[in-house]
């Protein structure tokens, strides 16, 4: 079989370059840009197809071709022929395993367009990589092996492409050479896929019969498929309408990235315009504050502009001195985006550590850095069957529809309208890893309905009446470390000194307020969240609150710390080595845990994350409980 390339022979320059370079440059500086993603599983020939596109659009240089030929013979899968997949499989580990693990970006250009291709892996365990690649794509090429038809992964990829809001979908039915370019088989696959696509709300797609290996219908019509009358893959990519026009017709919105303040006379607001058009003289509104002003200038280094549109990075000045800073959104005054702090969203989880409802994550949306937590997981989506299944947490590559709450109201638009103001990432606040991505559907209620009840007696007044500074003394440590004993002694001592106190103990809370919670990681997080909220209310009432909970996770202790004013949260590490605590075993729990009777026991089969910088640390091996309590009282009153 001849697998020599059909169109390319390595890089060939356009004739115009030699004839008239100025004319060539003029033509090429007006090119538009299309970003697309290719999806398919390992054997569908995805890398081969991209390699072929690069090759046939003459983007491969002679020397690259020479090393490709050498490499193909050495490690390729095509015998003596060129293995185009080697052009795009980047990292050495990937080349050895013969699979694509990460997202790789490729570039090529034709006379009409510059293209950026995100090449992403097909396996289910790389769902997050595919979502990453799809997040910036205007178009998706879904590969199907003509011999196999619509497979589970085709459905999964289609679901993800649709989830990420990609409106242009190409179904590239590949390896047509291996089914003798059979029209009937092609039609059957298209019909089969059409039914499925309609079911997930994917409205439109273009099916093209191709062979990446042989080059059929890649850059031009193929003699092998006379029955196919549509465009070749490349001519479709060159002519398909890009979604930028739609963004321009939406109302003006620009998240503020940076306030430009070179001197006292200039104050500009820099950002990338997310949607719409802006002109000097336009009335604008700054969200979330709602203050209005008028655009004075659109400042760029090339001179002021009369107009700027979605996709441009600009600096705006206002005619009035109103508050505006990073994270705010400048919007058309008569069509501002909504502001809310509770949403329904689809979340894709991207980390090994599972998502825990109630845990506080850092969230980035637009230019806003805030905190958010999942308040309820409504259902998970099985990406293979698209069934909804119940779940409490969310593991790597899991997808779920959730309710989320942010720690302050933010301007947003539904993701479907604008990814720029509706897409967000979640970041683990301890490891700083990006752990999730989300797409907002809608606000659960507008924030204007949930303004805090303004009270006349403030927390300061409550505290002043008691002649003390509110505090939350947060005792943390292993089971049996002596938290409750010491906390009890501390409370007695404070009471004797005329302080107004209240002690919340783990066991007591679990018998009442939190009796619906067990000992899974998710329940432990919720347990601490509730305790934190109650402690905060009591601190608002002016009390010195003592809590004695194992509270094994750093992030939850930090969550409570962040609920309170600076300096009011005092973390006390009751530091007792596991052997000592286990030897004490006051409640007989360690024995049960060791025998397997008790699951998820901290220190045995569930981790305890020691405080890194507690305000107070007491070592119960070196000190008696009485000494520890005296030491704590002294430190607390001095702070």
């Amino acid at each position, binding site marked *: 079989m001849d697998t020599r390339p059909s169109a390319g022979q390595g*890089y*060939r*320059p356009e004739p115009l370059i030699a004839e008239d*370079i100025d004319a*060539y*440059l003029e033509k*090429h*500086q007006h*090119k*538009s*840009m299309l970003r697309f993603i290719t999806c398919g599983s390992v054997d569908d020939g995805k890398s081969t197809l991209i390699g072929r596109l690069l090759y046939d659009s003459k983007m491969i240089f*002679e*020397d*690259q071709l020479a090393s490709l030929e050498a*490499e193909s013979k050495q490690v390729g899968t095509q015998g003596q022929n060129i293995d185009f997949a080697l052009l*795009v499989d*980047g*990292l*050495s580990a990937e080349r050895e395993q013969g699979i694509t693990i*990460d997202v*790789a*970006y*490729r*570039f090529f*250009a034709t006379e009409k367009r*510059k293209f950026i291709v995100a090449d992403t892996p097909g396996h289910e365990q790389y769902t997050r990589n595919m*979502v*990453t690649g799809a997040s*910036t794509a205007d178009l998706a090429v879904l590969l199907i092996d003509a011999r196999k038809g619509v497979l589970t992964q085709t459905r999964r990829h289609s679901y993800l492409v649709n989830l990420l809001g990609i409106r242009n979908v190409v179904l590239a039915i590949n390896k047509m050479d291996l089914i003798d370019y059979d029209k009937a088989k092609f039609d059957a696959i298209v019909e089969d896929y059409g039914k499925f696509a309609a079911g997930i709300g994917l409205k439109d797609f273009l099916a093209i019969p191709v062979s990446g290996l042989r080059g059929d219908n890649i850059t031009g019509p193929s003699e092998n498929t006379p029955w196919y009358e549509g465009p070749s893959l490349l001519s479709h990519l060159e002519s398909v309408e*890009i979604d*930028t026009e739609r963004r321009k017709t939406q109302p003006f919105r620009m998240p503020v*990235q*940076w306030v*430009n303040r070179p001197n006292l006379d200039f104050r500009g607001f*820099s*950002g*990338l315009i997310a949607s719409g*058009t802006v002109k000097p003289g336009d009335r604008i509104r700054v969200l979330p504050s709602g203050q209005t002003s008028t655009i004075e200038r659109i*400042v*760029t*280094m090339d001179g002021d502009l009369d*107009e700027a*549109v979605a*996709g*441009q*990075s600009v*600096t705006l000045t206002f005619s009035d001195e109103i508050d505006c800073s*990073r994270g705010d959104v400048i919007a058309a005054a008569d069509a501002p985006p909504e502001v809310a702090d509770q949403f329904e969203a689809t979340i894709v989880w991207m980390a090994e550590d599972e998502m825990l409802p109630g845990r506080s994550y850092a969230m*980035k*949306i637009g*230019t806003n*850095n805030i905190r958010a937590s999942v308040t309820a997981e409504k259902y998970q989506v099985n990406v293979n069957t698209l069934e909804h299944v119940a779940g409490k947490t969310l593991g790597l590559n899991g997808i779920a529809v959730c309710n989320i709450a942010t720690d302050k109201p933010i301007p947003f638009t539904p993701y479907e309208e604008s990814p720029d103001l509706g*897409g*967000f*990432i979640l*970041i683990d606040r301890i490891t*700083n*890893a*990006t752990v999730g*991505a989300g797409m907002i559907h809608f606000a659960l209620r507008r924030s204007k309905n949930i303004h805090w009840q303004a009270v006349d007696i403030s927390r300061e007044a409550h505290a002043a009446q008691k002649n003390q500074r509110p505090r939350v003394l947060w005792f943390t440590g292993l089971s049996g470390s002596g938290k409750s004993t010491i906390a009890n002694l501390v409370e007695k001592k404070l009471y004797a000194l005329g302080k107004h106190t209240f002690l919340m103990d783990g066991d007591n809370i679990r018998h009442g307020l939190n009796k619906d919670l067990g000992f899974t990681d998710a329940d432990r997080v919720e347990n601490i969240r509730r305790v934190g909220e109650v402690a905060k209310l009591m601190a608002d009432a002016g009390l010195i609150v003592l809590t004695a909970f194992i509270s094994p996770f750093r992030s939850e202790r930090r969550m409570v710390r962040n609920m309170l004013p600076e300096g009011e949260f005092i973390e006390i590490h009751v530091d007792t080595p596991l052997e000592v605590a286990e030897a004490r075993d006051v409640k007989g729990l360690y024995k049960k845990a060791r025998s397997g009777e008790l699951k998820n026991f901290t220190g045995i089969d569930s981790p305890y994350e020691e405080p890194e910088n507690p305000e107070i640390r007491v070592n119960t091996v070196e000190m008696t409980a009485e000494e520890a309590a005296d030491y704590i009282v002294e430190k607390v009153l001095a702070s």
Partner: protein
Amino acid sequence: MSELTHLQRLEAESIHIMREVVAECENPVMLYSIGKDSAAMLHVAKKAFYPSPPPFPLLHVDTTWKFRDMYKLREKAAKEAGMELIVYQNPEAKEKGINPFDHGPLHTEMWKTEGLKQALDKYGFDAAFGGARRDEEKSRAKERVFSFRSASHRWDPKNQRPELWNLYNARKKKGESIRVFPMSNWTELDIWQYIYLENIEIVPLYFAAKRPTVERDGLIIMVDDDRFPLKEGEKPVERSIRFRTLGCYPLTGAIESTASTLPEIIQEMLLTTTSERQGRAIDKDQAASMEKKKQEGYF
């Protein structure tokens, strides 16, 4: 208004990236290598923060073996941008007299890889802009725009943060840093077209002129100063040459050319059928060499 061109979209994206870094990092710096990619990146930076000067310094990790024309432009470019210029030379390499003639790969490792790490540590920079592009090399094609480095400057290609939409995660612990590549999505041709359209000043060595040269291992090397060890009886030959890439002068091969304007350079580039980096001896290594270098901290 007509549709944005690909260059307008690329520029807008790069500006957005630079502003995110300035808004979210404490102590950013821009790596400046004086080449054409650095020139384009610096120009975008000026645009991103106008009318303010870019709010970070330029850092040149010097090897003392750059072309004289490069040193001249370095001072001028920094001054015109209104930016502080930091020049760092690895004191150990200086003391040992490390040079490209006697020390081979050690030259790059000591001056550039080690020098860069030392400079970042010395000034405590937590983010460093680099002009690398994804079209340059296979392992670059997979690297993030915000590329995270451990406290010991290592890159872990298998453990990169997912990067979605235009939301960049700049969070890090003390001592860790981020390499930021705002020009990731530009290609070689995009850079040249931008330099042409925006009238950006570049080192004259990119333009053809008669220059003294010798041939070494099939490369045409320019004799830029009297540190160049000529072989016995060897005499530099005048050739009309220019450079496609600029590194240390004894490591950078020239091409014979008469292209003396930007359109001619672009024309010549588009008519050549070999890839860009052929001129730089450092890359004539096995396929995975760049990935290895990058894991060790090379930019």
